């Protein structure tokens, strides 16, 4: 059953608060389109957000939603999913939220392989507070806290999720709308932890400070730099973060190439399955299996 995405959109909250040229509006539509194409019941979806520009997405979504604190979207989502594994739980985070203040929750959600779909809008800086560098800001980038160039390297979020054990890891860009819908849809169907990283432009801060031209040019650059690995995926098949070059040397410009598509696909059993296994064993040894079944 395919539904109109507007069913999930709170049109009374429009217009969107995001800056002109931001990718978040497109990501929002792709997410809702993915909900629609899977025919998800609004009542059985929980959207958890953190703090930041993309963290405001819950204002426009008509499913269950919780606006958490900064960096803790995955911690809150873990609680929801642990209690109600039957619900579709989605965490929306930016790079400040997911890769910086909440980095610990990110790696542990991936390690635990809990069935949450994380949709990360990566615009390489903290947009909401004025363009400070974040955990994904590439070395050399100018931000409002690194006016002479950033002295640290940024995370490759997909490699991080891969190393931590996520079942499904994919990357796309805000420009590649159809690919984005497909990847989010697939992530929503994954029983374990799934992360879709979306390279998104921030013309207001990152683009302006790094002389990346107009919003239009930033979008064109996403289009030109993307290289799809195809949809087949494969074990530990990872790529290059939007902010990083393939080599290890820190450089002063963002990556020439953004590797997109499904980068990791695993079949590890998810947290809910393994945890109920443990419960079953414990109840059996304690002689309470009948009780568990009765529940």
């Amino acid at each position, binding site marked *: 059953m395919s539904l109109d995405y507007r069913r999930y959109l709170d049109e009374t909250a429009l217009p969107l608060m995001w800056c002109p040229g931001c990718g978040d509006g497109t990501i929002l539509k792709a997410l809702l389109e993915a909900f629609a194409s899977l025919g998800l019941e609004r009542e059985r979806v929980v959207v958890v957000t953190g703090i930041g520009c993309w963290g405001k997405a819950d204002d426009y979504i008509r499913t269950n939603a919780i*606006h958490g*604190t*900064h960096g803790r979207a995955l911690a809150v989502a873990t609680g929801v999913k642990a209690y109600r594994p039957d619900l579709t739980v989605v965490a929306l985070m930016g790079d400040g939220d997911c890769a910086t203040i909440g980095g610990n929750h990110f790696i542990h959600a991936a390690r635990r392989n809990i069935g949450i779909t994380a949709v990360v809008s990566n615009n390489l800086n903290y947009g909401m*507070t*004025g363009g*400070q560098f974040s955990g994904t800001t590439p070395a050399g980038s*100018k931000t409002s*806290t690194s006016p002479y160039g950033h002295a640290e390297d940024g995370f490759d979020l997909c490699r991080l999720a891969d190393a931590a054990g996520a079942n499904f890891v994919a990357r796309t860009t805000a420009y590649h709308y159809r690919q984005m819908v497909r990847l989010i849809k697939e992530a929503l169907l994954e029983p374990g932890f799934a992360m879709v990283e979306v390279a998104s432009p921030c013309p207001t801060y990152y683009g302006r400070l790094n002389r990346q031209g107009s919003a239009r040019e930033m979008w064109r650059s996403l289009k030109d730099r993307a290289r799809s690995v195809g949809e087949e995926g494969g074990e530990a098949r990872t790529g290059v973060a939007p902010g990083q070059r393939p080599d290890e040397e820190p450089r002063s410009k963002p990556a020439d190439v953004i590797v997109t598509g499904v980068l990791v696909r695993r079949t590890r059993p998810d947290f809910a399955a393994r945890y109920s296994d443990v419960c079953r064993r414990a109840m059996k040894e304690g002689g309470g299996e009948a009780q568990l079944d009765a529940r």
Partner: protein
Amino acid sequence: MAQTETKAGRFTARGPKGRPAGRVALTGNEAVALAMRQIEPDVVAAYPITPQTDIVQYFSSFVADGRVATEFVTVESEHSAMSATVGAAAAGARAMTATSANGLALMWEVLYIAAGSRLPIVMPVVNRALSAPINIHCDHSDAMGARDSAWIQLWSEDAQEAYDNVIQAVRIAEHPDVHLPVMVCLDGFIISHALMNLEVLPDEVVKDFVGSYRPDSSLLDPERPITVGPLDLYDFYFEHKRQQAEAMRAAAPVIREVAEDYETVSGRRYGDFDAYRLEDAHTAVVVLGSAAGTARFVVDELRRDGRRVGLLKPRVFRPFPGLELADALAGLDAVAVLDRSDSFSTMGGPLFAETRAALYQRAVGRANRKDSGPSSGSGPGNGRPLPITVNFIYGLGGRDIDPGDMRAVFSRLARVVETGDTGDVVNYLGVRE
């Protein structure tokens, strides 16, 4: 980066012919950042949060432009910001950070470590409402949540006072009798983002005022190595807490002493609180922060109509100047305490609870001589019944408080005095219900 340079240019307090000039137009955040530049701490560790971000942002441009020699660390959370500040201060550095709202809440654990380790950290707190629901505007729930953390709290009515408080805070925190951290509170957006013409001091005057920091003991002293914060069970923990309480008590005279010194360099006088037209008043409001400006305006207005009204604005909330404050209020018929946060005790907001406790303590005269000093049990109003006290919770989440609201508070006080009927003790001002 032209914009940053222009911004930074505004911090150069130079008048005509290159003389240090007094008067500049700055936002509260700019004024605090300027004070931090003039203090030039050894270490600043910070994380962005609205509405504090500007302070550290401007400060980072001073670092980038080489105008301060501060080690500036941008960390990945406020918990890390306070932790790094604690580490730096323990190592003997003069260390600062700044935050707001949930940032302060995230620091919670480390606030106690800073105070318990007796580290003289200074932190501007740009007051903002706590989540949930999320809100970025002003109220005092953030700092009030930390009121029992053994941090000294100085509150500011405007950008001028915020600037002056930050400079004084360094001396207070580092005083050998005190050695406690200080937060300097200023109202989010109302003070932090509004422009004000204020008097600033020349750099060398501030540098001379704060002096250099030489702690008695620090981690990085190889001659006298120490450990900070190790396990301390029922054998000594209690004594250490008692010492903290004593340090907070000792802070009161130090705050006054530093204010006197500051007056000699700045010409501006600060007390524990500002008693405005209170001498012959029948009724008064007690209020912290920027709303005191609104109250002052309404007091003047009502005074022109012959109404005997006044204002008491605390500047020091920790330590709480309870006895002096009770002396100042004792002669009144009725007092309204305005709280920009709710304690949810159902007994009123935090400022109300403490003001009423101070009045009670004065009235029953149980304070011993050591506690109270010569003022207890004498002075105006002694022997008279206590003023009737009512509480108004106002302005949560940035809800505006205007002169009309303030007039309504004074009208209510007049009615209370006239009828003798207190009515509801805890009231919510300007809310839909």
